């Protein structure tokens, strides 16, 4: 059976600050593009009316849209960041159980 490189310094040892920036920065870029395309197609005032916030100012609508996009894209980036960590530990534990 091939030995698993459990003790090798792996990807998870990326500094925490780099992880944060690798999540926030790409998601910011994509959210900016998404916001522009979205609001070219939809008027925030009309959307606010449909959603039941007729009082919303346009600028508040655009702001909410941008941060909404940023939230979504950063969730996606965090998941990528999470799943790119190798799952050596889980694997080795599983195979150990089977041997017994």
């Amino acid at each position, binding site marked *: 059976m091939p030995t698993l490189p459990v003790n090798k310094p792996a990807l998870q040892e990326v500094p925490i600050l780099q992880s944060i920036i690798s999540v926030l920065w790409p998601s910011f870029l994509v959210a900016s593009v998404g916001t522009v395309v979205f609001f*070219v197609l939809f008027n925030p005032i009309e959307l606010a009316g449909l959603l039941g916030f007729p009082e919303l*100012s346009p600028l*508040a609508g655009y702001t909410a849209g941008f941060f909404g996009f940023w939230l979504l894209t950063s969730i996606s980036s965090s998941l990528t960041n999470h799943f790119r960590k190798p799952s050596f530990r889980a694997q080795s534990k599983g195979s150990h159980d089977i041997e017994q």
Partner: protein
Amino acid sequence: MSSNDAAAPSGKNSDDDDLYQKHKKVYVREVHGLFATLRNAAMVVLLGLYYGLAWVSWNGQQVVLFDLPERKFHLFGLIFWPQDFIYLSALLIIAAIALFMFTSLAGRLWCGYACPQTVWTEIYMWMERLVEGDGRKQKKLDEGKHGSNYVRKKAGKHALWIAFSLWTGFTFVGYFTPIRELADSLITWNLGPWETFWIFFYSFATYGNAGFMREQVCIYMCPYARFQSAMFDRDTLVISYDEKRGEPRSRKAKKNATEGEKAGDCVDCGLCVQVCPTGIDIRDGLQYQCIGCAACVDVCDEVMEKVGRPKGLVRYTTENALEGKPAHILRPRVFIYVGIITLVTGLLLYSILTRTPLEVDILRDRSALFTENDMGMIENVYNLKVINMDAKSHEFTIEVEGLEGIRISGDKMLRVQVESGAIAEVPLRVEVDPESIKRRSSEIFFNVQATDQPDLMQHEPGKFIGPVAR
């Protein structure tokens, strides 16, 4: 060395493992010379445009204003609407291809002279020098004892930076909310919550990026830096150290030469490293951290002049030229880029110049397919949206055609006055003699035309529903 495998970072910079963490501040030495002058000129022009253009008005209209509440972009007398998005896409294509072209011609020209990150970093470094002195003094200040002088200088620098950041943020928001109104509400302490938020958000980003992140943005965050090597070839002008001429470098070159030892032109003064804003050594070869600012070219030329050797030990040159091969500036990829740019620019200009700044939307009233009025005529109800995208107001006439005897009920011709950039909603009834209706749904046309400018017109199709004649 092939340009694609940009060399690994030199020894002292290989702290990639602790990205963003144990970052060592780069103390940049000020440099004078041809390229420094060019860089400063670019900085003054670009910053002048950014801070100045927001205040320029023409006919009472801010010339560059992305009016978000009204969803209109004012650009030098033209008004663009969300439906003109295609023009923005064309503009972005032109910008991208131009970037590719300049990169393949002369490397990172954009990064060195025009990128906002570079431009704002330059002005923030200038403010830093103003308060703390040159790079060496800054280092001394940071490493020395943190007494009252230290606190005074740091406080002064940050006050200057914060003031400049706030002005930057204010100007940014001024491109989205008319800047004069914004200034009025600032003076009367009446800023809206969202304007305030964005001013602070943008100021904070400027302060962080230009004051602290600096070259790290280029090295770790810039997407362009990662793929630009794809546009480099052996004929791309890049800043290179002439290794053949410079090596072996020696601090005692003169002495070595007189003693018959082989000596290169490089006197190993280390100034090229001291002036580098990204803190690399250009003598290690082409590196991905190099933003092509040419500070090392200027400083090395100065040194070469002092020691009485020809300038250009570090210079803009191509890989082919360094190897003594003929250089080709005009090569197929350059022609292809120029071709695409010319084509897209031509199409863009043509469609902007020939566009009709008038849009007509026709909505049929859905409550009833058709009605019969007391005169025995069949009527359909419509709601016309007349959008005047021109820079001045017009009076428009509305006519209808397509069926025999078709007319707008009441008036034969409808007139409507629409201000510049406004939308007029015109409800109207159209009537037809049942005898002329041949189909359940017939195509009719609405002609909307400006009275003072006959070529400003739209011929918009609509549907007329009626009973089929038996």
